[in-house]
């Protein structure tokens, strides 16, 4: 008899991403459905507004990808108006983008994904001297893994646990049979988990240096950047460089070795291997390093065939809504996209609760509509985006910055290239992407410094002709994959706006042909050890770094009696 398992919420905020799978008698996933239960709809709020304001709104879509959408909102308008910003502005954006990527990738691996791989409780029983020695197996110069340091980490964790407050460590599936690290390996990763909390602050400051304001930077403007005084200040520039180096050091001596460790240990864990999901890979060039040079290039790989990389043709992109809560089902190019909501809700059904019992629940209407995410397609096919796509496409193209890093990683872990097409591969390629950015960004920094010596311009002049119609787009690569924003401008205001965000490619519901996106496809065939603790599902979905829709920050204090803190209005 088949059973249904629902994991909701799988992203942190309630009601954002929900996964439903149907398993057979052997607990093998036969059907999978992933949907977002919150409407985004940025498209509707920018309509009729001054195009120069769009970026300031798009950056508020999300609390994590804020800079990605800010830059996209600005560049889409620049593209429409035919503006090429000065090189200084373009390189400054690269430096800010590098800060965003490194913040995002390290926080994702340690704070958001690590507990899927690392059994924190097990670290308490590690031998600190053995762990300290073990760290040298994965790098010649380990980071924060001296025996004294590891002992302190253990004591800190114990004090936290003894307080009865597991805080960030609560609710993982400790002791689950698919955790593979030994206690010493868990302790090494835990030490880096704590270090990451410190390092992420430093890289957030790197963003602030050129942001004019943080949180929510304001220095990008249609035409260029406004942080002229920061660019001309040797101390500000030096601050960026020093802070960036400190973070790059963490990437190379902690993050990278931890992935080498994971690559070796998890190479025998079937639930993280051979699950590429959608084998069509799509990435877009990003990180302008100089006048005509980008760190990563664009390309498309079809059906996992690395022997041919296709050029990206933007008119082949469509979005359809057969199974999405929108009125217009037909595939449309983003320039002509429609965003008319048609919410049909969930339906009554049954699923397994966390005690393993069948319970009545509200389920996806899998025959009908079940997600706020549209189904983006390229030539009618789903695509996988993200670090895996970016690294594999660039590797296949022979990118000089990517090939040696990938080859070295495979050699150090004894993994074949095909192992990259997996949950483990998605997690590892994110680290490799971070390493490549960490190792190369200061070349863009040097080019900026050199260029500033001969050219101080940071903004290009332009006019918006109210009698003219414009259309333009941003296409690029952001931490979760390929992002595009598409806009039309008419009568001097925004006429239409569509954002095709990375998670919509990966988390796409099924299309008219019944073909799902990468989240859904990678779950098919998965064997779940314990239906009450579907860690394998969570780990796979987390490997995409899911970021669905926008951040709604209602503090959830349910289950706690706060009535004594209610403010009496009459006082």
């Amino acid at each position, binding site marked *: 008899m088949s059973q249904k398992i629902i994991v909701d919420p799988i992203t942190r905020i309630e009601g954002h991403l929900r996964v439903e799978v149907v398993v057979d008698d052997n607990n093998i996933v036969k059907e999978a459905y992933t949907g977002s239960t919150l409407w985004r709809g940025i498209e509707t709020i920018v309509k009729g507004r001054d195009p120069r304001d769009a970026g300031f709104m798009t950056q508020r879509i999300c609390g994590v990808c804020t800079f990605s959408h800010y830059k996209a909102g600005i560049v889409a308008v620049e593209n429409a108006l035919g503006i090429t910003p000065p090189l200084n502005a373009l390189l400054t954006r690269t430096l800010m983008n590098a800060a965003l990527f490194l913040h995002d990738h390290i926080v994702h691996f340690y*704070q958001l994904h690590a507990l899927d791989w690392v059994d924190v409780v097990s670290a308490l029983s590690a031998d600190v001297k053995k762990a300290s020695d073990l760290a040298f197996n994965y790098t010649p110069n380990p980071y924060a893994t001296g025996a004294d340091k590891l002992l302190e980490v253990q004591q800190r964790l114990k004090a936290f646990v003894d307080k009865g407050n597991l*805080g960030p460590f609560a609710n993982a599936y400790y002791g689950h049979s698919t955790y593979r690290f030994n206690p010493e390996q868990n302790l090494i990763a835990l030490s880096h988990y704590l270090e990451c909390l410190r390092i992420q602050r430093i890289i957030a400051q790197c963003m602030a240096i050129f942001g004019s304001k943080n949180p929510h930077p304001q220095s990008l403007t249609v035409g260029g950047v406004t942080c002229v005084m920061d660019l001309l200040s040797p101390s500000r520039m030096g601050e960026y460089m020093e802070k960036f180096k400190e973070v790059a050091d963490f990437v190379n001596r902690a993050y990278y070795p931890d992935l080498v460790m994971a690559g070796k240990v998890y190479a025998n864990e079937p639930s993280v291997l051979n699950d590429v999901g959608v084998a069509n890979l799509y990435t877009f060039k990003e990180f302008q390093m100089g006048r005509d040079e980008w760190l990563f290039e664009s390309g498309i790989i079809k059906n996992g065939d690395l022997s041919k990389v296709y050029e990206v043709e933007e008119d082949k992109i469509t979005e359809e809504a057969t199974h999405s809560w929108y009125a217009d089902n037909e595939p449309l190019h983003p320039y002509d996209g429609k965003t008319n909501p048609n919410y049909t809700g969930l339906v009554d059904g049954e699923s397994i609760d966390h005690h393993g019992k069948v319970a009545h629940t509200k389920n996806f209407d899998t025959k009908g509509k079940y997600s706020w995410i549209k189904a983006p397609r390229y030539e009618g096919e789903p695509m996988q985006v993200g670090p895996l796509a970016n690294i594999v496409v660039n590797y296949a193209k022979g990118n000089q910055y990517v090939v040696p890093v990938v080859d070295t990683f495979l050699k150090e872990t004894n993994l074949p290239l095909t192992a990259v097409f997996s949950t483990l591969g998605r997690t590892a390629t994110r680290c490799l992407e971070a390493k490549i950015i960490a190792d190369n960004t200061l070349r863009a920094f040097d080019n900026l410094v050199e260029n500033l010596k001969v050219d101080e311009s940071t903004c290009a002049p332009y006019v918006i002709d109210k009698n003219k119609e414009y259309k333009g787009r941003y296409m690029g690569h952001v931490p979760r994959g390929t992002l595009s924003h598409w806009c039309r401008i008419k009568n001097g205001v925004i006429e239409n706006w569509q954002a095709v965000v990375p998670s919509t490619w990966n988390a796409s519901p099924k299309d008219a042909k019944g073909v799902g996106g990468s989240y859904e496809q990678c779950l098919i065939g998965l064997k779940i050890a314990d239906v009450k603790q579907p860690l394998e599902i969570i780990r796979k979905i987390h490997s995409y770094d899911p970021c669905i829709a926008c951040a709604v920050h209602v503090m959830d204090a349910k289950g706690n009696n706060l009535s004594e803190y209610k403010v009496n209005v009459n006082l």
Partner: protein
Amino acid sequence: MKFLVLGIGNIMFADEGLGVHLCKQLEKNYKFTHQNHSLSFIDGGTLALQLSYIIAEYDEMIVLDCIDADDSEVGEVFFFPYEAMPKRVNWSGSAHEVEMLQTLQYMELVGDLPRTQILAAVPRRIKPMSFELSSEIIRAASVMEKTLLDFLAKKGFSYEKVADFALQDLARVSFKS
């Protein structure tokens, strides 16, 4: 000591932007003085972990936010210390969004979380893509304003009203600043 008032929320989701709008309103409408203490107002927007380096610089913090609590009604206001938050927040299957509460937990783990109070109201409309606030939340904001002023007065701050910006007016333009 350094005091921080941190407004949190998504300004494009109507009532959900309350924390940010109120933070800006208080900063614009009042002038605060204290012989020894300083007071800053920061729009934290939708960010979380990226705020921790900023928060760490302060000794005491009041977070303005929206809240969803048991037995609560729209427009009700709560003011409580961080310690009163649930010790075991359910984030099973947690993944992406590190939100404010987790940020505070991470800072507690690092060991430099300022003394923190949370001042929050229960929103009505968490409607995507709107700057229009509900009348309940506008009323709640004035309760929060009074609560905060009383709190700061107890801490020895004196204040004077220097302007009269309305919450709804600020909500319509807050994306620009």
